[in-house]
């Protein structure tokens, strides 16, 4: 479903990705972990075609080197900063895709659909008519999530879906992602620093470290691993092979 092969990406002299390769099968949930600034968000943008890799090839949903608009029907994306449209109220953000394009919905049913998605991310209907600037960070994140799943795309990318959420809502979101993968058969790539997300959402875990996928395996293997880099990261220890100054 998703295949990345030898992705390289540098910004000027800064080499962020230096040969990332992986595959995600249909209906599988991959969780990507890795230190802050290691290039996880950049990797997702390379997959989506928002950044063009300097080298390497991306294949998603049968498309090679896809451009973002070609993927729109296949992929939903939650951005790290939510990236909600300031000029539109919450429900129109969620229904954005539904109200445009050849198969566009009328306003009333699109609003209904948006309210339903908002309910699934724990947002009460009263917030539907607010503007993004009036929401808290965690609320923006959840609206972004609702927007990503609104079109029920078969592939989903989540960039830190539980960052900024309280533990209860984080559990709601983890359960939602798991449900989308298990019940609707979606394929998901989730970036997270939240070990509960890793436990609850991952079929497979990949760790990005020094520009490459340093480690891949199942969630259980990741939690039980005695690899020094992986354990330092998962347990959040200060001393170990990963430097704290980066």
């Amino acid at each position, binding site marked *: 479903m998703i295949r990345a092969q030898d992705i390289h990406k540098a910004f000027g002299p800064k080499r962020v990705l230096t040969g990332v390769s992986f595959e995600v099968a249909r209906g599988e949930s991959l969780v990507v972990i890795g230190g802050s600034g290691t290039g996880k968000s950049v990797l997702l*943008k390379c997959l*989506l075609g*928002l950044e063009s890799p300097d080298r390497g090839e991306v294949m998603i949903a049968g498309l090679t080197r896809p451009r*973002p*608009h070609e*993927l*729109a*029907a296949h*992929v*939903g*994306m939650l*951005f*790290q*900063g939510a*990236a*909600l*449209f*300031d*000029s539109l109220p919450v429900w129109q953000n969620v229904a*954005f*895709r539904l109200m*445009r*394009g050849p198969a566009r919905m009328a306003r009333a049913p699109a609003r209904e659909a948006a309210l339903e998605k908002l309910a699934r991310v724990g947002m009460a209907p009263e917030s539907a008519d607010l503007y993004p600037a009036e929401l808290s960070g965690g609320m923006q994140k959840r609206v972004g999530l609702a*927007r990503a799943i609104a079109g029920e795309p078969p592939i989903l990318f989540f960039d830190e879906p539980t960052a900024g959420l309280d533990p209860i809502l984080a559990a709601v979101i983890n359960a939602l992602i798991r449900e989308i993968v298990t019940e609707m058969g979606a394929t998901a790539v989730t970036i997270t620093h939240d070990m509960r997300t890793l436990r609850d959402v991952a079929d497979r875990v990949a760790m990005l470290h020094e520009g490459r996928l340093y480690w891949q395996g199942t969630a259980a293997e990741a939690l039980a691993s005695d690899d020094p880099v992986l354990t330092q990261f998962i347990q959040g220890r200060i001393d170990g092979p990963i430097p704290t100054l980066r």
Partner: protein
Amino acid sequence: MNPILAALGAIGRSVATGLGAVGRFVTFAALALSHLVRPPFYGRELALQLVQIGWLSLPVVGLTALFTGGALALQIYAGSARFNAEFAVPSITAIGMVRELGPVLGGLMVAARVASSIAAEIGTMKVSEQIDALRTLATDPMKYLVAPRIVAATLAMPVLVAVGDAIGILGGYSVGVNRLGFDGPTYLRNTMDFLEFWDVASGLVKGAVFGFLVALCGCYFGMHSGRGAQGVGEATKTAVVLASILILSANYILTEAFFSA
């Protein structure tokens, strides 16, 4: 290294950079134009922008024209009195207003108001990844953001200029009647009899060109904004400065084209 060679090298590099920048700007303009004629069209966005760019600019353009028309009448009176040609005040005020000052000052005011807000809005959308989000939602920012703004500004500016012309002439009229002792009906008759169709029409054409340039600058620098608040600030400033300079130079070129010979 030889200092002369070094200097030549530096000049060459800046010329190359400058030409590259001009090339990108022109390419962007051509791309934007090509998107104006290809569907999908976003009618709602266009309507919103017509309100933003056209309707909400009326007070600024109107006030500018009012005071300019008044000052123009005073100056022309001062000048023409030296030749005992005071009778020319109404017609020359009107011509100055509709041919030059209406479109140019209106354009500059709209550049300050609209190029800045377009650049800041699109630039903020860029740095907060909203442009990326648009693209992943199958919406081309050139069509959804750029095209409606360019069309709205190009359509709204001539209307703003026409309103500004009328208010500017009114400003000249009220100064003429109240301060310079003209007879009201005579002032108006003089204005109307002298103004030709092309005087007004040329100003409206200028307005359309200026509106296009304003929106183009706003969109271009917004879409190419650097990162962070500083990047957006820089983009906004550059958009206003370049829009103003393009308006003044385009005005000269259009005036040459319309009225020389």
